[in-house]
């Protein structure tokens, strides 16, 4: 009897001991580092393809044409239909009348786009078919409907965070590059590579978005709903601390 127990214990040591533990440990380590983080996010596309390249390189616009500070110091962020309509000069009333005359339901976007309504088509500024389709989509789904484009904000912050672009306007990338190491967990180090770019927007926003033709998908956390790029509180606090700025609650939570 006693001998049998001893044999089992030996067998146990032979068959595993630490080995199954190590296998389990390594397996979840690999999963946890390489596989699972990706599963927390789903990719959501922007409402339509907006090409910064066409607007910046093609039309000679600069960042401030759409993303500007208002007189009261608040930041305009995404452009509104009012701003877009300065160039995309489709008269909503005229377009809706033409749609009604063509007997198309104003909410049937596909039918409107296929119908190639003159009041819309004659005012398209794009040249290639792909870009024309993107522009058409904007005009039909948003501009003439009087709806603002529900852009997905890669750096979305909740309502309880007060972020002032004006207060961060003077951040100097060259100066911050000296803290590159300390900031490595907060800011993508690529921002500091090469000659310090003039635009400090890259510190938080998609790098060189002004040269982007097709906006990348918005990566949305399936649990929290936040963007993968949303800056967490500890990152804000880290940078504030490094720059000698206050970290009191009311600094950001008004």
């Amino acid at each position, binding site marked *: 009897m006693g001998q049998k127990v001893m044999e089992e214990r030996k*067998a*146990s040591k032979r*068959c*595993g*001991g*630490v*080995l*199954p*533990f*190590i*296998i*389990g*440990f*390594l*397996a*979840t*380590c690999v*999963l*946890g*580092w390489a596989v*699972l*983080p990706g599963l*927390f996010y789903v990719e959501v596309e922007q409402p339509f393809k907006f090409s910064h390249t066409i607007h910046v390189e093609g039309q000679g616009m600069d960042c401030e044409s759409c993303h500007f500070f*208002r007189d*009261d110091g*608040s930041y*305009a*962020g995404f452009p*509104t239909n009012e701003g877009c309509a300065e160039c995309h000069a489709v008269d909503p009333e005229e377009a809706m009348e033409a749609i009604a005359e063509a007997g198309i339901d104003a909410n049937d976007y596909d039918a409107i786009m296929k119908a190639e309504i003159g009041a819309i088509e004659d005012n398209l500024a794009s040249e290639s078919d792909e870009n024309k389709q993107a522009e058409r989509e904007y005009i039909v789904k948003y501009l003439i409907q009087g709806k*603002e484009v529900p852009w997905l904000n890669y750096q979305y912050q*909740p*309502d*309880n965070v007060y972020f002032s672009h004006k207060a961060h306007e003077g951040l100097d990338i060259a100066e911050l590059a000296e803290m590159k190491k300390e900031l490595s967990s907060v800011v993508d180090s690529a921002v500091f590579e090469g000659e310090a770019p003039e635009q400090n927007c890259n510190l938080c926003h998609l790098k060189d978005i002004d040269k982007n033709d097709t906006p990348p998908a918005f990566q949305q*956390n399936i*649990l*929290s*709903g*936040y963007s993968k790029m949303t800056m*967490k509180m500890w990152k804000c606090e880290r940078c504030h601390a490094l720059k000698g700025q206050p970290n009191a609650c009311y600094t950001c939570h008004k």
Partner: protein
Amino acid sequence: MSVARRAFIQMSVGATVGILFTPTVWTALDDVSIWTQNWPWIPSLKYGEVKGVPTVSKMCESGCAVKVRTVAGEAFGTEGNMDNPLSGGGICPLCANGVQVMNSPTRIKAPMLNGKEISWDDANKLVSEKLAAAGSKVAVISGDQTGTVNEVFSGLLASQGSDAFYSMPSDMQAADKAWTGLMGGSGQIGYDMENADVVLLAGADALESWGPTVANMKAFANNENGKFIFAGPMQTRTASVTSKWVPVPAEGMAAFTLGITYYVLQAGKSVPAADFDQFKAMVISGYTPAKVEAATGVKADAMAEIAKQLLAADNPVVVPGGSVAANGAAFALNLLLGGAMKVLPEFGKAVETAMTRSEMLKQDILKGVSADVLMVYEANPFYALPEQVKGAFTVAFDSVETETTAAADLVLPTPHAYERADDLATPYGVASATYSLGVPVSKPTLNVMNAADFVLGLADLGFENFDEVLEAKVTAVGADMDELAEGAAYVLEESADVSGVTLAASVLGKAAVPVKGTGAVALAPYTLLNVGTANQATTPNAPCTISNNQLIGDNMVVMMASATAKKLGVGVGSKVKLSGGNGDCEALVQVFEGVLPGVVAAPLGMGHTVGDEFSKGKGDNVYKILTVSSEAAAGASTWAGSTVNVAKI
């Protein structure tokens, strides 16, 4: 235990430990913690450009020049308009809640005929038929004192052959009846309180509800060296900040003013009025300080002291409130003093066939209104004057539900002030003729129509819509449309002609005699804008500013001096019934020595039976216990001199 099972457990333990060495668990915990911030039912803020859009608000009687705060085009609040002299950055408690009222669940959502929704076309057809059948038996009651919409209604009446245009009782009406009616003047009386060195507020609680309250407060604040004196039956909030409060019963205000005039005449002051000698004789014989003291209880010395200050001043002004006689007496005194009373010209009309403002103020609503078709525009006579108003077919134009819309046969929803174009011409009391324009700030979300547009669809007045009327008005005024749209006021520094004005000696001599009711105590009704007015109930954020001296729980509070309370056998917190006029009110008693003995002070504007949760069922309606008495000599009616019986319950 089998080997496989043991290995499995060991591997699971390893896996569990292993996962803790990855960010997965920790980031998942973090994600879960902030997941709670984005539950779908949590309201989220709207972001966009924050603007202040200038417009006008008509919720208070004189109207406010405001800026509506919007974010991404959506209105969320109201503030004063620095660029407009009516506001100077200030705002009244009613208009401050304009956006909340615009979003109120009591907004009228569509045209309603006896509780059933109908189309605007059917409403037009129905009212057209009723008007055709009624002929000249058509009347209009307007709650708007300053808008050109009144010209449109007046034009409709003219096309029907009627002159039955009524305004709700107001200080502006009493002043007009005295100035243009009794004294033969023209234009509108104004008071330059900012530049006056002595201001006698003879019954005008100018810093809380009388006249253009906001402009008055600005004038008071800017007038650093001026001396303000308040006379009235109660130490109002106005009295609490003036240099002196002189207790004067409301019905004795005209006599009190003539008592002061006695000293001014004795000092040798005169005016080139045709009846000056008659006026002087009337005052010197009938209103000696001793007689006035006997009739009103105001000490002769007090009147002498005020007269002395007025005579010594370079630019004095007497600002009246109350009866036609009290207004007439004050105007006569101002003419003698030659100070800061102004006579403002009326702006030109847009609608040719419309009455002038003075003509619109002639009809006496307190004498009763009866018509086959009664149109009520943003007024609430069925709350404030239920005994006086009768219409065989009543059409109520309003944006929110009121006692009047509940009683009307046809209810036609108007856009809220922030959803429509409107204007505001010279509210009563301002020192100069001013004209302000209101532009729509928000798009209407309900099935509403501007009342003027509806009326223009009934009668051919030469305009397609109200925008055209306003354009014509701006042209008649001589103002610049663009500047007005940006929120600036057009100010005309001209005076109307005062030659030919008399002192109404024969009328004032009789009309100034105090007439009091037969009740046990005199009633001093008072208005606080945060409590509400005859037309506008309190607004959503205002109730928290109503003090325990007006409302405790759902009970109205009346104030009286301790001597009065002792005489009536009541004390602080006693529940009493006040009976007077044709009704009674319930209230709790508060003892306040700032009320003249023998007087009970009660707040107007409560006790609504229709409305939102902030006004319905709160307090009681003091309008029920007011007594309408005839100012026989002045040919007018007044609530001054109302008395009540008080019973403990």
